[in-house]
């Protein structure tokens, strides 16, 4: 048997290993967002219930804010929710909500039961805005500056750690400049 041939498994393993090593350096939740440093797309969403003001992209102008995509059907959103309530109570930045692909009434009922951390909420039942924003799942959150440009895209739950060590420093810097 060819002696070189016997080292082929080792060679294949070595190549695979290089990729594993590279893969390890990636943060699985840091999906590159095409929205970074671009203005939000124009949108005008209806409110969750009749009489609610709804949400349009002009609402986000003039102040640093968070745009949070959620749904009553989404278990991780329920986990994230207390943190959003905490941010909302602190009054540090306004949070705007996009209720993504929810059944009619479900989003409003969910907020009524758990509490509403959002300054305004838009209903994206068809998921149009979510496509424009490049959403892959809920929850996802955009940090939007006073000019309405996206400065950061966070995929997944905003934990205490994410808030304190990622979002808050960025917000402070944006407000300084």
């Amino acid at each position, binding site marked *: 048997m060819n002696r070189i041939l016997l080292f082929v498994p080792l060679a294949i393993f070595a190549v695979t290993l290089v990729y594993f090593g590279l893969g390890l350096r990636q943060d699985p939740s840091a999906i590159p967002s095409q929205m970074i440093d671009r203005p939000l797309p124009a949108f005008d969403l209806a409110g969750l219930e009749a009489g609610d003001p709804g949400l349009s992209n002009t609402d986000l102008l003039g102040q640093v804010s968070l745009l949070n995509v959620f749904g009553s059907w989404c278990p991780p959103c*329920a986990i994230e929710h207390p943190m959003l309530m905490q941010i909302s109570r602190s009054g540090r930045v306004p949070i705007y909500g996009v209720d993504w692909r929810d059944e009619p009434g479900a989003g409003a009922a969910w907020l009524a039961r758990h509490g509403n951390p959002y300054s305004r909420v838009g209903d994206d039942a068809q998921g149009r805005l979510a496509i424009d924003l490049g959403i892959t799942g809920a929850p996802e959150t955009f940090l939007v500056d006073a000019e309405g440009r996206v400065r950061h895209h966070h995929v997944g739950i905003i934990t205490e750690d994410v808030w304190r060590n990622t979002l808050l420093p960025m917000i402070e810097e944006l407000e300084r400049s």
Partner: protein
Amino acid sequence: MIAELGQFALILAFVVALFQSLALFAGLRTRDAVVHGFARAGAIAQFVLVLAAFACLTVLFATSDFTALVVAENSHTDKPMLYKITGVWGNHEGSMLLWGLILTGYTAALAWSAKPVEARLISLTFAVQSLITAAFTAFLLFTSNPFARLWPGPENGQDLNPLLQDPGLASHPPMLYAGYVGFSITFSFAVAALIDGRVDARWARIVRPWALTAWTFLTIGIALGASWAYYELGWGGWWAWDPVENASLMPWLAGTAFIHSLRVMEKRDTLKAWTILLALMTFALSMAGTFLVRSGIITSVHAFAVDPERGVFILAILVALIGGSLLIYGLRAGLLKPTGVFSAISRESLLLINNLVLAAACALVFFGTFYPLFISTVSNETVTVGAPFYNNTFNPMLGALLVLVPVSGLLAWKRGKLMPVLRDLAPAAIAAVAGGVVALWIADRGLIAGALGTGLAIWIAVGVMIDLAKRFKLGEISLQSSLARMARLPLGIWGMAVAHFGLAVVVFAITGVSAWKQEASAFLMPGQHLDIRQLTLTLDSVEQVEGRNYVAERGHLTARRDQQVVSNLTAERRLYPVRGMSTTESAIHARVTGDLYVTIGQPSPERGWPVHVYLYPFAMWLWIGSAILGLGGILSIADRGRRSLVAKAAPVQAKEPGR
């Protein structure tokens, strides 16, 4: 106190394993009998220590000691006792400790049972095995300590992920791990054989029961995992080509190839280097399966823990164990010279084809699982590989392989004739074609896939029967002598026949649930109904119920056919407030001809409850077929072989004629 005790036991286990491994490798040169004696004692000591650590963690969970970090993060006082106990391995640290427990358990079992194995081989095997244990306990201690303290302890815990609060969880990971880890024994034997520079039929005979034990556990583990997904995840799927599922399929495919080539090696003393490579690969894939999903390299819905620091440690372990063993393979496998020769048409070559196809299928799954990773490391694009990829590549490949199953059982060793075998199998072919046509006729959507699957299942099942009948010489000699032959048939042959029959059943069930499934959904207010095929499903009422650690909406439904009540069903949607997660408890009316599977979703005030109904023909046979497959494995383990291990090694070229 108990946590510290467990910690201490785990540290001791690490020290013993490390010392034992080093001593045994060193002892090879000295040929000191004391060192060899230490191998067995050390193996049992490792097991007792890890068992003690595991017992400590179990006590912490049972008594809800929230000063232990893992308990606080994964348990809750309101949780039923059963799930407090299963919660021990429902988290990263605990499940890794279970892995270690099973690993040392296998080592201890080897110590108890391996008396007849030559001292040098067994000592080398223990040396490799202890090295794995040392690497593993180090991983536990340094990156995944199950006994870390949380001070002050919280009032109550954060509860176990509700998806994992299910009887399926209690049995599924331990079974799967028993499969994965079982291949560590064959891996260690293979590395020992390479260092020793010699393998023969006797080696295959020693290793075979371990390989079959691991394979059987893995088979049952995968089936339990699939049934957990089917019953608990609430979308009616049993297999989704998720990375974690693939991670268990890859060692299964490699392990299946391995047990087949092991048979060739035991019988004919050939395919040596290949068999050894399969032994190494099977465990390598088992380890990759366990670890890659825990390191954050591959993300998945099943992943418990994502932590890059652990990932680095894991990669180091993989480099040392897999890289090291493959390096030894490259250096030493050239020494393994086969003695048996065989012609192109023989059972050996058919089993070699089996091996190559299984290896290729395994490579395909590997590629599909890691392709997204490869792409994302070299570019910014993200891709996903899903069911269509596997349906178009994996399924035809395995389908072609399955055609060969009955042929290989009938073909003679060494040099066979194809024509007589095909003539023997003619009834199976006729039955398969007839079955396929009937399937095309009955299934109201004329699906080619359904016909092919049915035909294949019948071909294998009838082929296995014909194979057995030929072995009994049924009809050729008197019934009495046939029965006598039947009684004398080795258990290994029975195991093969039963396993292949189980395979036929699984193929048929997969055809049923995937080709012929039907679904319907609608929003229903109580009193409204929806139709699927001849069934009418009415939502009678919905009530609020409170479980011990959850609240639920329970929907009562009635299925009727022609005004006759077929089944009363209750489907639930549960909310677990501590974790803020909801789960679906599907209602399943299971019969041998198929399952009626109903879930209810989140209601909308105006439109009612979304009710989803699936019909899964022959779903039950998935589990029955898997059980038969496992039974085949158990029968084969029980086969003691013609060469007794206790007697001195028999000459290699045995004179058994034919099959």
